[in-house]
């Protein structure tokens, strides 16, 4: 084993130990009647074992079984608020609300902590401290709306916003009105352009892949003074990644992300030639983990490089979501020097569910 490999192995083990210790702390918090939330305390009351005594590490989370999608749909949303945070202002963020009851996740400070950690991965040269931001993405009850604004503020900037309701876009498409959906997109882009032209200090942009394309069709990012683009919110393919870097960025930095309301934000591995624009993400360990599992046997993590369904685990004191099966699939990516834990490559909608998903509409 080379020295580099040995160093990586040491890092992997250190991270694993940190993760296991964090799991014990989070489980102790959520299943303690003094600090835990009603949902998990109620859940524990139906068990004939005590999670605080039986869960010693990350792998032991298996004992709790998979987290069910339906648990997050509908109220009372307060059952998710840990007693340890009683009296603190609570946000609720939503996801999956295009049809039926959306999933809700409560938030107190998580979005700030996640985006502050993410801020450390952004190069100051391209996302200058003190520069203003434009957020051109989904707003409303989405975590992104507040999170991007916080990111801008945390870096000393002010965030300009434009309204965007993705549920309306999905509805228009389902109603067979693609032209109206396009008109709505242009309405969003025009507002963004107005802000970009009126405020010289906007140098950083958050947007989605489709809106980035639409914006670059109208204007040169370089001419507008944009030096860094944080892009996410929907599926991103290697071909889009390449197209954005080669043909849209004009020298600006492209920071791709994968995230959602339930997990937080996964950062993109810095681009390397041998990755050939594969979109590789690493979760913010130990606050969240992403695994790739066998769709037919979700207890089995697939081998490195193999394809499987994405499984999320969120481990914060605000929100505990062990082993949630996402509606995405990906390849399992090995740990790397910068992120010595498992990542995912080329996340896309889970093929077995794809017929029911309207993806990437905004």
């Amino acid at each position, binding site marked *: 084993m080379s020295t580099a490999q040995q160093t990586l192995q040491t890092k992997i083990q250190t991270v694993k130990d940190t993760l296991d210790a964090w799991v014990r702390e989070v489980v102790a918090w959520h299943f303690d009647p003094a600090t835990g939330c009603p949902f998990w305390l109620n859940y524990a009351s139906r068990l004939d074992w005590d999670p605080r005594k039986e869960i010693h590490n990350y792998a032991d989370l298996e004992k709790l079984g998979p987290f069910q999608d339906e648990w997050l749909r509908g109220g009372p949303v307060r059952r998710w608020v840990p007693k340890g945070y009683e009296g603190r202002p609570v946000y609720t963020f939503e996801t999956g609300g295009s049809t039926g009851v959306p999933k809700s996740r409560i938030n107190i400070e998580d979005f700030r902590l996640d985006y502050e950690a993410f801020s450390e991965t952004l190069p100051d040269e391209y996302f200058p401290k003190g520069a203003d931001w434009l957020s051109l993405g989904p707003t409303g009850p989405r975590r992104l709306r507040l999170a991007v604004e916080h990111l801008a503020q945390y870096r000393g900037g002010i965030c300009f916003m434009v309204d965007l309701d993705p549920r309306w876009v999905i509805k228009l498409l389902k109603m*067979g009105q*693609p032209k109206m959906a396009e008109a709505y997109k242009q309405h969003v882009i025009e507002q963004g352009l107005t802000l970009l032209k009126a405020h010289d200090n906007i140098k950083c942009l958050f947007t989605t*892949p*489709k809106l980035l*394309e639409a914006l*670059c*069709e109208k204007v040169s990012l370089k001419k507008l003074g944009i030096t860094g683009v944080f892009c996410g919110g929907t599926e991103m*393919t*290697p*071909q*889009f*990644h*390449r*197209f954005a870097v080669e*043909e*849209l960025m004009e020298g600006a930095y492209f920071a791709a992300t994968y995230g959602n309301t339930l997990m937080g934000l996964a950062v993109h591995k810095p681009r390397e030639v041998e990755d*050939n*624009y594969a979109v590789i993400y690493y979760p913010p360990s130990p606050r969240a983990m992403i695994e790739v599992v066998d769709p037919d046997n979700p207890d089995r993590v697939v081998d490195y490089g193999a394809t499987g369904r994405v499984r999320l685990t969120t481990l914060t004191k605000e929100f505990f979501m062990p082993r949630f099966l996402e509606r995405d699939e990906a390849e399992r990516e090995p740990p790397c020097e910068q992120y010595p834990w498992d990542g995912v490559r080329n996340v896309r909608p889970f093929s077995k569910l794809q017929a029911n998903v309207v993806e990437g509409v905004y």
Partner: protein
Amino acid sequence: MVHIPILRHGQPYKSLDVSVVRHHQTREPFVEISQANAGLIRKDLRNQQAAREKLAKFSTAELLDICSRAAESFLNGSLPIGDAEQTPEDYVHQVSATTGMPHVMARRNMTKIHAALAEAGNVLNGLTRNLDWELLDQGFGELEGKPLSFYPRTDSLGVVLPNNSPGVHSLWVPSIPLKIPLVLKPGSAEPWTPYRIIQALIGAGAPPEAFCFYSTGHAGSGEILSRCGRGMMFGDAGSTGVWANDPRIELHGPGFSKVVIGADCADDWEKYLDVMVSSVLNNGGRSCINASGIWVTKHAEKISEALAERLAGVGPRAADDPEAQLAPFADPAVATRISQLIDHGLAEPGVREVTAEHRSGERVVELNGCKYILPTVLLCENSDHGMANREYMFPFVSVVKVTPDQLPETIGPSLVVTAITADPKLIRDLVTSANVDRLNIGAVPTTQITWDQPHEGNLFEHLYGRRAFQRAVAV
């Protein structure tokens, strides 16, 4: 494995997103096709005028010479296919591999495209009704002493292409001598023909900038059609329906082509059996110009029996068999699904399958691991029946009983109608019917086309508008 790149105004571009098409028989990966993301298409189509200016520098006569040279190289030359070379035999095998089309049919279609290129001058004459080509170059001129002026309605023609038969590609070829650049989206399993035509034209001297070739998904197709000033779209009723009210887009949906035998000729039906058989069977029944209906006022039972007897003799043969008349389905599951749809339709009273009595086994058969649907003849008691007006991509025909007074009102939209009649009223009614696109009077197979006649709309009129024009003598 052969890789087919995207062409961005003639420049090859290898995408990171590729689709792999399998050989219809072995199911092994056969070709990798670069897929264009919608944003890339949008970016390229921002400046279509530059491509048109490149093409407009040529005279119509020069472009027709290019077409003529391209015809030869398309038929006989070795042409680039990605980083490789493609001989004519390679082309035939490749078309067959991904579509299932027997070699003999692929070769026949090849000669059809050769003719469309070689005869481009005649095609242009047919489309423009013999306009002087210099008038097209200059944009104005005189015809029989009257001033005329035409202007291009678009800087490009966007075409969303099908998989069914290479012959359809002859329809967009005239765009080049008409000086309108092409933006092509090939069928997912048949990129071979449009790519080869483009390479033949570039090799013959056409400016590469005049050709965009984007294999892409639904969103990319939409971008092509919405961003080109004029478009053509091939597809089923579902996919073409979205563009039904957009006059910029010429739609090529199902043909529902028919042979109609008037009451005056009905007793002589046996004389026309060959025309009926070839209308149904030519090109494996894969074209929109194949007859899927034979509408008769008398002798429906006898006609359907005779047709069934003739068509029952047609069975599957190997892809390289020169006698092959049927194509297997590239996706075997599609054959099963179509056959089930037919069975479902047959459950409705008022129809029966006549071919069932002329074959020993099932409608779907297998040969060398490929699935075929055997020619199928139905007899419908009336034109309202759900199976009276159906079209599938194999030799399928409904013989439909009608009364003389129901013709032609009940036939519905029909790409080609061969009317076997000398009845002046029926001929007049067909001539004035908005449901009939191509009309053959007499015993002409629906599949027989002539190059000087427009097909499903006149491409010249689609691409060019006529303006009022006056010129002072002193100028």
